[in-house]
C-alpha cells in the first residue's frame, strides 16, 4: 500500500467555498466541456474540470498550489457551455479569493482585506487613523480661503502615512507571495521549474500588459476593454503620483502649482517649458482618472446586463469593483469641487478619496487587486514548469 494516495476531504472548506459564492460547484458532473471550450486551458494540464472536482472534494491543499486557477481569466465560456449550470467561471473566481486568503500574511489582515464581512474594519481603520492624525495636528476643520487640499490634509502628513502603509503592504505581500510560490513549487513540477525566472517573467508581463490571454475570451469579450481601461488608468495614476512626489522632493515645486514659481522657472528656463510640463502632467493624470472611471462603469454594466447565461459575481469581486468606481468618482469630484471652489464639499470628498486610496494600497496583498501579482507569479511558474 506504499504508493496509495489518500485524499482527505475538508468539509469545512467545501462549506466556506459555497458561502463565498461557489454554491453551484456540486452540480458539476465532470463532463469536461469546460476544459475544451476554454481558450486559455492548456493541452497537458487542462482546466477547470479538474479544479471543479478538487473543489467538490474539498482538496484545499491541492487547490492552493494549483497554478491553473490563475491561468483562468474568467472569460466564462465554461459557464456559458456548462450543461449543468455549475458555473466553473464563478467557482474559479472564488478559488482565487481562497488562495489569496490562504497565503495572506498576516492572517488577520487577509481576513480584513478580502472577507466582505469585515468591511467595517477595513474602512474603519483608515477613517479612524486619518481623524486621529488630523485631530492631533489641529487640522480637523474646513480651512478658510480658496480650496487648497494641502491646507486641510498637508502633504507632510499624507506622505508618512501612505509611504509607510505602502512599505508595510509590500513587505506583507512579499511574504504572502513567498508562501504561494513555495506551495506551488512542489512535485510533480518542482524539478521542471529550475530555469531562469526573468525571461519567463518578462514574457508573462508582456502578455498581461498586451492582454493577450484576455483577447482569447469568447463569451465575455467586453470585459477586455474594461480591464484595459482600469489597468492603464492605474498605471497612469501611479506615474502621475510619482511625478508629484518628484515635483515636491526633487524639484522642490509645491502644490498648488504655479507656473510662474520663480524657483521652477529657473530650473526650466522658460515659462513655456514649465507650462508644457505642467499640461502633460495634468493630462496624463486626468486621462488616467477618466480611464479608471470608464473602466469601472463598464465593469458594472457588464455584470448587470444579461449575457445569455447565468454568472454571479462574488461579494469579493463586487467590493473591489465598487471601491474602484468610488475611488475614481471621489478623485474626479474632489478635483472638480476644488476648481469650482466649494470648500464645504471639496474637503470631505477629498477625505473619502484618501480613504479609498488607502484601501487600495494597504489591502493590495488581500483584495482582488492582489491578482496582479498572484497571476503574474502563477503564469510565470506555469511557463517555468512547462505546464503552460
Amino acid at each position, binding site marked *: 500500500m506504499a504508493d496509495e494516495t489518500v485524499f482527505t476531504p475538508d468539509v469545512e472548506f467545501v462549506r466556506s467555498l459555497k458561502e463565498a459564492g461557489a454554491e453551484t460547484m456540486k452540480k458539476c458532473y465532470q463532463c469536461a466541456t469546460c*476544459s*475544451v471550450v476554454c481558450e486559455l*486551458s492548456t493541452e497537458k494540464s487542462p482546466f477547470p474540470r479538474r479544479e471543479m472536482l478538487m473543489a467538490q472534494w474539498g482538496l484545499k491543499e491541492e487547490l492552493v498550489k494549483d497554478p491553473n486557477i490563475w491561468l483562468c481569466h474568467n472569460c466564462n465560456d465554461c459557464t456559458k*457551455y456548462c*450543461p449543468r*449550470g455549475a458555473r466553473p467561471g464563478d467557482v474559479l473566481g472564488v478559488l482565487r479569493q481562497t488562495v489569496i486568503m490562504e497565503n495572506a500574511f498576516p492572517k488577520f489582515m487577509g481576513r480584513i482585506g478580502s472577507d466582505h464581512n469585515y468591511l467595517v474594519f477595513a474602512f474603519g481603520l483608515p477613517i479612524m487613523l486619518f481623524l486621529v492624525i488630523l485631530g492631533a495636528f489641529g487640522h480637523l476643520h474646513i480651512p478658510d480661503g480658496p480650496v487648497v487640499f494641502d491646507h486641510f490634509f498637508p502633504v507632510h502628513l499624507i506622505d508618512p502615512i501612505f509611504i509607510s502603509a505602502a512599505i508595510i503592504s509590500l513587505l506583507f505581500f512579499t511574504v504572502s507571495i513567498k508562501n504561494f510560490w513555495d506551495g506551488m513549487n512542489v512535485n510533480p513540477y518542482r524539478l521542471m521549474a529550475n530555469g531562469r525566472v526573468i525571461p519567463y517573467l518578462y514574457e508573462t508581463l508582456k502578455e498581461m500588459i498586451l492582454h493577450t490571454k484576455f483577447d482569447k475570451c469568447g463569451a465575455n469579450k467586453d470585459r477586455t476593454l474594461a480591464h484595459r481601461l482600469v489597468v492603464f488608468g492605474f498605471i497612469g495614476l501611479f506615474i502621475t503620483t510619482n511625478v508629484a512626489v518628484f515635483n515636491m522632493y526633487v524639484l522642490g515645486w509645491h502644490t498648488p502649482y504655479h507656473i510662474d514659481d520663480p524657483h521652477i522657472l529657473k530650473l526650466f528656463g522658460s515659462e513655456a517649458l514649465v507650462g508644457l510640463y505642467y499640461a502633460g502632467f495634468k493630462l496624463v493624470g486626468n486621462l488616467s482618472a477618466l480611464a479608471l472611471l470608464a473602466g469601472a462603469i463598464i465593469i458594472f454594466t457588464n455584470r448587470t446586463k444579461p449575457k445569455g447565461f447565468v454568472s454571479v459575481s462574488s461579494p469579493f469581486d463586487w467590493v473591489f469593483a465598487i471601491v474602484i468606481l468610488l475611488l475614481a468618482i471621489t478623485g474626479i469630484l474632489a478635483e472638480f469641487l476644488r476648481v469650482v471652489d466649494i470648500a464645504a464639499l471639496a474637503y470631505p470628498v477629498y477625505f473619502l478619496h484618501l480613504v479609498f486610496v488607502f484601501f487600495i494600497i494597504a489591502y493590495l496583498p488581500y483584495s482582488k487587486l492582489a491578482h496582479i501579482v498572484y497571476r503574474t507569479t502563477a503564469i510565470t511558474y506555469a511557463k517555468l514548469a512547462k505546464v503552460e
Partner: protein
Amino acid sequence: MSEGKSGSILVVGGGISGLTTAVEAAEAGYETIIVEKNPYLGGRVAQLYKYFPKLCPPYCGLEINFRRIKQNPKISYYTLSEIEGISGSEGNFNVKIRINPRYVNQKCTSCGECAKVCPVERSNEFNYGMDKTKAIYLPHEMSFPMKYVLDKKVCTGDSCNKCVEVCKYNAIDLSMESKTIDMTVGSIVYATGWKPYDATKMDNLGFGKVKNVITNVMMERLAAPSGPTKGEIKRPSDGKLVKTVAFVQCAGSRDENHLAHCSAICCMASLKQATYLRERVPDSKAVMYYIDLRTPGKYEDFLNKISADENVKTVKGKVAKIVEDETTGDPIITVEDILGGGKLNERFDMVVLATGMEPSLKGQAVLSAVALQDNGFMEEGQLSGIYSTGVAKRPYDVTTSTQDATAQALKGIQSILRRQ
C-alpha cells in the same frame, strides 16, 4: 359526420408505441383508431437499420404489426392526420380529426410511373435530407400503406399535370381537399413519439458547418440498404468510404442548455452503430467519447460484447469542439481525456453526434386536454381517460416502449369499462 363510439380507443401517433397499443387493445376486442401525421405508419422505427441489442432489422417487427392491423377489422387508421380538438370526459370524448389530402387515392398500385415523369424534386425527410425525392413519391420502399403521396408545397399543380396524365389507374387527384371528421371515443392514448434534437443548436459541435459531422439518426439511414447510399457508409463531403468514426455522446442530452434529460438510448445506439462500421470495413476504427456509458441492466452485456473489439474504443470526456480540416474535409474533435489526462485533438473520417430524443410535442401548440412537463414529455394523470406512452411520455428504447404501450392499452380499456 360522426364516427366511432364511446367504446373505442383513439391512439394518437402510429409509431411502434401507437401501433402496439392499438393492436393489443383491438386483439382484446376493442375498437381502435390510429391517427398518424405522416403518410405512412411505423414512425422512427421505420427509419432504423437495426435494433439493439439483437442487431435484427426493425422492419420485421413492424411488418408483423401491419399484418395484425390488416387482419383485424377493429382497427382503423388515418395517415396525414392530426387531432384538432378534444372535448368531453373519460368514456365519452369528442375528437376532431383533420385529414390532410394525399392527392393519391385508393387506386394507387405504387407502380411509380408518376414519379418518373414528375419534374420537381424535394428534400427527402425520411433520409433526413441526405437525398431527394420527386414531388410525388413513395415515402419509403416498405411504406404502409403502400401508396404514393404528393407534396403540394413543391408541386406545380395543374400547369404540369404530367403525373395525372401518366397514371393508368386514375389514382391521382390534385383537387383533393383536407376534411375534418368528428369522432366519439372512450379513451385516448398519446403516442406522439420524438424528433431528433436539432443539432445545429449546438454551435460548438459544428453540425451544418463541418460537412462530415452527421447525427445518429442519419447514420441509421447511411447504413440501411434502403438509404441514400444503399447501405454503404460514405461521408457527405466527398463520398469517401468511412474508416474512422468518432461517436460524440450526449450531444444535446443531459444539457440544461439543450435537453436536460438523458435520452436513454444514445449509448446503446452508438455501440450498435459501431458494429455497422466494423462489419463493413475490416480495419475500421470507432471511438466513443462519453460522460458516462449508460447501458443499464442486461444491456451491460452488449457494452462488454462491443467493447471487446479492440477497434472500438471508449474515451471518457465530452467532445466540446469540432472543426474542419479545410483541405481534407476531415473533422477534428477536441476532448479532455479525463482518465488518460490532457486534451486530445483527434482526426476522423466522420463524426456521429449522438443527438438525443426531443418529445414531438415540445414547443408545439398542444390542446388543453394535454399537459406537458417543462421538458416536453407528457404529464400523466392530468385528465382521466387520456394516457401517454412511448417517448411522448419518457425517453424509452423500443422494447420498453412496446411494454409500456401494451400497459396503456389496458389503461384505455379500463377507461371504457369504468364508463359502462
